């Protein structure tokens, strides 16, 4: 007799996912980019690239550089704007069943609210991730993400404009991550996600010029994974809402590590670029791990870290 397959379902506020593995904003486009390579309906959720009210062009090139165990990017959040997103991508997403989380951003608190209110009317959108922490936008989001009062106001304002699940995405470059997590919880967030990319820079030593047109960017990939594990662990210990862990997942191992640290769900990011089906392997790897450890539900894994000495 074989054991039944472990139960992988998790909940983020009112939103139930068939499994805890999502793809991170900015690494999977809006869905069609990977649809001929990946069965996207097997994903726990699809987090689409950041959307604001108006279309945005993004930064000049070069926009990214590969570094040891990661890449630094400064794409600059180009996108079609909220109406362009609805018109261009919702028809495609309606042919699929994967839960859709839209990453939103703005240059003012009011703009976050406007985008949220517009997407609140779109049935196909299941949740909103609030990007208060992109390091590549000069006058907007970085400021929000590193100022507790601003984060609180953004979350509170969006909360008033939508009944959908809202998930603020936190910056890693603050002194006190648990405090930010608690502020989000207090302002009405249903879950939080972290970490965003880590502010970083690379210089061409021959020309002595920055490798990116934007001079600085955000580091992603395996290089940031241990930083993310620590911050996810701290955040999960500080709040009772679910935490979504991301940063450097390349296999089931890193995802399981996040969940042991306290993450309810995880998001695969930069690894999608080299291995488009890696998220599906992570799902299978988590199921295999649960079976091997005699766990019937993924919920037994969440926060199961053993901190006893020796």
């Amino acid at each position, binding site marked *: 007799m074989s054991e039944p397959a472990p139960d992988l379902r998790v909940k983020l506020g009112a939103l139930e996912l068939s499994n805890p593995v999502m793809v991170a904003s*900015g690494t*999977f486009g809006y869905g069609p980019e990977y649809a001929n390579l990946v069965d996207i309906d097997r994903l726990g959720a699809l987090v689409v690239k950041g959307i604001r009210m108006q279309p945005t062009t993004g930064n000049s090139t070069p926009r990214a550089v590969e570094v040891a165990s*990661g890449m630094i990017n400064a794409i600059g959040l180009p996108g079609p704007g909220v109406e362009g997103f609805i018109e261009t991508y919702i028809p495609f997403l309606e042919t699929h069943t994967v839960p859709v989380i839209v990453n939103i951003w703005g240059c003012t608190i009011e703009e976050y609210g406007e985008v949220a209110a517009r997407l609140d009317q779109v049935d196909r959108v299941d949740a909103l991730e609030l990007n208060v922490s992109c390091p590549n936008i000069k006058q907007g989001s970085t400021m929000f993400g590193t100022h507790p009062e601003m984060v609180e106001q953004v979350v509170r304002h969006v909360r008033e404009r939508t009944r959908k699940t809202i998930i603020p995405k936190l910056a890693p470059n603050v002194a006190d991550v648990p405090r930010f997590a608690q502020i989000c919880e207090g302002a009405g967030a249903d879950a939080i996600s972290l970490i965003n990319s880590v502010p970083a820079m690379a210089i061409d030593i021959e020309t002595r010029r920055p490798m990116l047109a934007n001079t600085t960017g955000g580091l992603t990939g395996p290089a940031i994974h241990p930083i993310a594990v620590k911050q996810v662990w701290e955040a999960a210990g500080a709040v009772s809402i679910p935490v979504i862990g991301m940063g450097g997942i390349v296999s089931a191992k890193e995802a399981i590590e996040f969940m042991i640290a306290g993450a309810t769900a995880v998001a695969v990011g930069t690894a999608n670029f080299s291995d488009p089906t890696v998220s599906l392997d992570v799902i299978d790897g988590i199921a295999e791990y649960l079976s091997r450890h005699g766990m019937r539900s993924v919920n037994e894994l969440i926060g199961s870290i053993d901190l006893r000495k020796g």
Partner: protein
Amino acid sequence: MKTDLSKRAMRAERAVVTRHELLYGEYRVLQMHVPAVARAVQPGQFVHLEIPGLDDAILRRPFSVFKADDAMLSVLYKPVGKGTRAMTSIRVDDEISLIGPLGHGFPTSHDVAKPVLVAGGYGMAALYLVACALKSSGTIFMGGRSAGDILCVDEFEAIDWDVRIATEDGSRGTRGFVTVALDEYVAGLPDAREVEYFACGPNAMLKAVCDRALANDQKAWLSVDRHMGCGVGACLVCVQRIRDPESRNGDWHWERVCSEGPVFESREIVWDDDE
């Protein structure tokens, strides 16, 4: 974005290496058995390879397709950077993860009065399928630093193309940039407007071809080279400024080299100031 990404022929395959050897000087040919992709390749498209043994480098590497038939696909490369140096240890029978075919290549089904290919470096390999696909043969201009950088001459001559060579050090063909030889050729034509360019090589060379196409009222299809992340249109790293077709005041937008490109017509491209 004008491309309907969900209708592409691309797929992810395990390609089995069938041949890997020095072909010209330091240039190597890597041939793989990957029928589903090889069959679908159009001239100017590329494939994205996961290079084994790249250690802490995390991205795939894009390669123009040199040759493709019903079963085999090959790329040509020279070990210059981290990725291409690691490639040299790939052995016959190894399996490599390959995504392709990717991008929009060169148009080849229309009538071209005087096809002129302009190639630099690995561009000589990338244009071979274009030469094969065009309805009539023409002239290819190959440029390189020295004789060792001139590739595939026999291949082009075997399909009746007129091969003109230029090297910067004069070790083979005309001395100087490829455009010196090209300008002489075009100046000798009764009607220069009949020329249609198909070019692949360094961006500086493409820009030079672009300038000539605009000055002489010619068409030029240019395969643009940009740093690439995902290769499939998601990361928005490899973008190129493209002129808004209706605009009279120089408005432009970004298009993805991996998806809308890599081939653009010269009039579409807005070059960066330092190009």
